[in-house]
């Protein structure tokens, strides 16, 4: 029996981390339920789900990139550009599937460029994707400037209507990414490259090619998030997703993904995102003003990572 436990050390560690994240979420939920009557309503929870879904989709991509030892700061801008792309195409009266495809292709393309830049130039991911963050935001503004992008057709709006459709889309994305990370070669290689890219390279893993794929996944998921955001709000502005890249990183990190690569999980990122969104919702309902919301969220991020750091030291 003892042997069995030892044998599954890393599995148990992972399970414990997931459990901790879930416990954190439960704790926050219970506290707010006790404090604010409105938090106890079903509507509140469905709202949180609806609001979380867009960020969650983006954070899935961020998590993949982080696990592989990369960093992507451009996803917030990609979200905006892809939303503008979808909005423009719809405003031009073209079919919905064209709008969605073009938006996703745009996201994929930017992600691909991110990957190529990081791999080919050797510019650190932080700088490469920060540059891309500005460039893409610029394009989003060019595309969206002075253009009325609202009142989309029903067939498009339904994607973001209520909480069911966004949750299903986010859930679908989660299942696919989870499958990739836990069952496929691509996922295995992400952990290996993030763990030690030199060891991975010397073991014959095509490190650069894989890296480009991870950034592309991040890009296409940010594109999907952009489409969903446009459908949900039924209008598009080029300032969508400002600062979301950091919230996506926060979600991943609160969920226990390492900023240095090699460790983490996409499932837990969803919990991380839910924690952030629940905090926002609860604080708003208590009547805390928006400045203090920022203070609270920032504190939670630091404490979450601190707990993780302490545990990691102890396990060594």
């Amino acid at each position: 029996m003892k042997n069995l436990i030892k044998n599954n050390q890393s599995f148990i560690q992972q399970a414990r981390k997931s459990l901790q994240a879930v416990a954190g979420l439960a704790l926050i939920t219970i506290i707010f339920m006790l404090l604010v009557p409105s938090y106890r309503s079903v509507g509140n929870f469905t709202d949180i789900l609806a609001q979380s879904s867009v960020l969650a989709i983006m954070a899935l991509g961020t998590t993949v990139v982080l696990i592989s030892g990369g960093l992507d700061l451009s996803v917030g801008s990609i979200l905006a550009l892809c939303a503008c792309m979808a909005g423009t195409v719809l405003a031009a009266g073209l079919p919905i599937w064209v709008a969605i495809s073009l938006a996703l292709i745009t996201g994929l393309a930017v992600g691909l460029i991110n990957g190529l830049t990081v791999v080919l130039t050797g510019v650190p991911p932080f700088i490469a994707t920060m540059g891309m963050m500005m460039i893409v935001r610029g394009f989003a503004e060019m595309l969206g400037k002075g253009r009325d992008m609202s009142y989309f057709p029903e067939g498009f709006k339904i994607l973001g209507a209520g909480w069911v459709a966004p949750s299903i889309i986010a859930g679908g994305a989660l299942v696919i990414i989870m499958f990739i990370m836990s069952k496929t070669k691509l996922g295995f290689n992400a952990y290996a490259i993030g763990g030690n890219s030199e060891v991975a390279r010397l073991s014959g893993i095509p490190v650069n090619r894989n890296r480009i794929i991870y950034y592309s996944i991040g890009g296409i998921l940010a594109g999907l998030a952009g489409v969903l955001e446009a459908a949900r709000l039924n209008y598009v502005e080029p300032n969508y997703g400002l600062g979301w890249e950091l919230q996506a990183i926060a979600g991943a990190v609160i969920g226990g993904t390492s900023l240095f690569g090699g460790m983490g999980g996409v499932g837990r990122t969803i919990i991380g995102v839910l924690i952030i969104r629940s905090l926002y919702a609860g604080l708003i309902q208590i009547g805390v003003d928006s400045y203090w919301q920022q203070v609270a969220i920032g504190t939670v991020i630091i404490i979450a990572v601190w707990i993780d750091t302490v545990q990691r030291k102890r396990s060594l």
Partner: protein
Amino acid sequence: MISTNSEFVVEMQGITKRFPGVLALDKVDFQLKPGEVHVLLGENGAGKSTLIKVLSGAHLADEGRIQIEGQAVDISSPHSMLEKGLRFIYQELNLVQEIDIARNMFLGMEPIKSRFLGIIDQKTLYKRAEYYLEKFHVNLNPYCLVGDLSVTQQKMVEIARALVTDAKALILDEPTDVLEDSSRNELFDVIRKLKTEQNMGFIYISHRYQEVFELGDRVTILRDGQNVGTYLLKELTLDDMVEKMIGGQINRKFPNLPEPMKAEALKVKNLVSGDLLSHISLTVRKGEVLGITGLMGAGKTELGRALGGIDRVDSGEIYIHGHSVPFSDPATMIQCGIAYLTEDRKSEGVILDQSIRDNYGLPNIVRLSSKGIVQYKEIDREIDDLMDKLAIKAPGRHTLVGQLSGGNQQKVVLAKWLGAQCKILIFDEPTRGIDIRGRLEVYRIMKELLEQGVAILMLTSDYSEALSMSHRVAVLHHGSIRKIFKRGEAMEDDILRVAIGATA
């Protein structure tokens, strides 16, 4: 200060240290006299490092007393160890590469001109640095950047730095593991002079048994956390020592090698790579070990990396089982059956904070996936099998590689490549940093591989390893093969002469 006339600089009595589930030190006594080099020996896990860490204050002992020059030290307040004049020099270099020798020597205790503004008194700094370098027989210019120095010179600077403040004893943890033979003597000279001139005590930890005899006065041998005994080195033979360390369980140091097969596994013709490798030609048969040795910088690692497809080469041909193959990237070479087992295991060989299973998967993931889906069950079956065959000591396949001993980490590296069906293995320093039991294990496995027809190219700077574990030994000098000895044809001094370019 009350002067004491204690016989010992350091006296440790009944030191006991427990870790969860392990008794790391069991009532260990240890004494260091002034003016002696006291060697601390034992296999990995015998308790050497733990004892030193207790002395340095990094670990708190559960029981026991420590006296420095006859004065009891409060073992629960570790900082006093440094104040009492103990200095520690660890295996890895701890210098700031980007600044010069003098600044490194006085790092954190620079002479100050103005305390308020924190302005450093440059003149005094360099003058004092010069004074100490000379006093400790380190012949270096204090203005030199540390990054420009050789590893040996950096080690000397570390020693000088340790001695700038009033030191009574110096503790050296495997200082020569990173040094090449010729420069080891420089270091030993400095230690000998300090010993006699300053009457300083040295605690010396090393895996290299020859140098222990060269340098040491007394030796304390630890086994399984217990002090086996303290002996005068001149009254001890190498065989005695090894027996005491391992408890008389191992009779022969190296295995006999099986006869190589006829078929040629690897043939290299006229390999050239810049100034590093010039016109290297060699062949290795199936079931044969070709040892490659030479001084540090002679091109051993460069040769291994070139054959592993890691570094680009200028020209040359390579034949694997008779077929010509282009020099290419690691992935291609692995497919051709060549694996390079790096000398730098921890940063190039394994991912320390991932599991044995995941490390095993690295080169095998392609083979063990179908349509992009990983067959984890298959991986688990294979690694369990190999852990069994190679006797990898770990609780299970999910144990993190970083938690294993050096020998077991090396076995994980081996498992990786055996899984990948590589028939030509390039071992670069296969037993560096591995204790004697682990070494014998590695040798045993190598021998088994030979019987299965694996060809081994062994790059090693340990001449006795090269002689005893190879069918033939090639000696490199400045990037070219100077001579190839057959088994039994050469002694260590023959190799050394060729390696330093004295004979051809």
